[in-house]
């Protein structure tokens, strides 16, 4: 696991190089969440709204909205597709994102309209790690995880 300023950056995920990580699943869907440095900037999340199942989103449109006392933001989709699953646990406990942003606190799963080009606008591997380290420096982030 790559770590920078206390922030975890798994090299096997894909990233929009801003707030979002993406994991391609075996069934062709994409799981979406927010990164460790993004949850650190947001602080303890108090509200999560995730688009309903079967809703179609264009690339760049929000699949979810997150709020803390000091940060409000959208979670943009990396590609056009239909929401096929959402993490209901986050609606009751949005701060799970502060605890386990890459695991239990995934946000939504989408089925891309065009599977072949679904990952055209996200980056992975060493290139992503370097870009996210620059992002962490630009935002001056030091990551800390909540324990519950």
């Amino acid at each position: 696991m790559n770590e920078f300023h206390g922030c975890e950056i798994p090299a096997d995920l894909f990233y929009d190089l801003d707030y979002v990580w993406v994991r391609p699943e075996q069934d062709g869907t994409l799981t979406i969440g927010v990164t460790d440095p993004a949850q650190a900037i947001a602080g303890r999340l108090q509200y999560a709204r995730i688009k309903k199942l079967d809703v179609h989103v264009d690339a760049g449109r929000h699949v979810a909205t997150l709020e803390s006392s000091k940060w409000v933001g959208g979670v943009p989709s990396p590609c056009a597709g239909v929401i096929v699953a959402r993490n209901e646990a986050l609606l009751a406990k949005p701060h799970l994102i502060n605890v386990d942003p890459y695991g239990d606190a995934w946000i939504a799963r989408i089925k891309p309209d065009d599977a072949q080009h679904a990952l055209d606008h996200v980056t992975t591997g060493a290139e992503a790690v370097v870009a996210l380290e620059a992002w962490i420096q630009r935002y001056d982030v030091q990551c800390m995880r909540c324990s519950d």
Partner: protein
Amino acid sequence: MESIEQIMRHDHERLDVLLEAGAKAVHEGLWHEAADLLQRFRHGIVDAHMVVEETLLFPAFETQQGHAGLALTAILRKGHQDLRVFFLEMAEAIAARDDEEFAALLRTVRALLKQHDSKEESELYPQVAAAMPEQGRAAGKLLLSLQRATADPGVR
């Protein structure tokens, strides 16, 4: 003559009034009026206010503050990016006459604008007004010309 700090703060207030008027129209089921008010709000904030900030004020602040200024402007730019998407979604909710979706988006936009405007008014504008008055004056002129170009009848 008003400082850039006063000009931008007054523009926030003017835009808040437009947003709330649009929200009131949605609440009353006046969908055409709501669409018109939200369009005026969107023009004012996206095509004028954000343009001034992104082309003049953010670069001026970054130049003056160096690396320390980048963290603030990065968060403010992300806020603009999110707001542009939320405004599109609000317009779609109005077109679909979906007051439940509009109310959820309005809650988010109000919260985002409150935090965003507060950062700009307490950190960005005072620094630019004090340290870079020429850039501030240029920003004020640009805002006025862009407001006129959007033909917003609410602009004197």
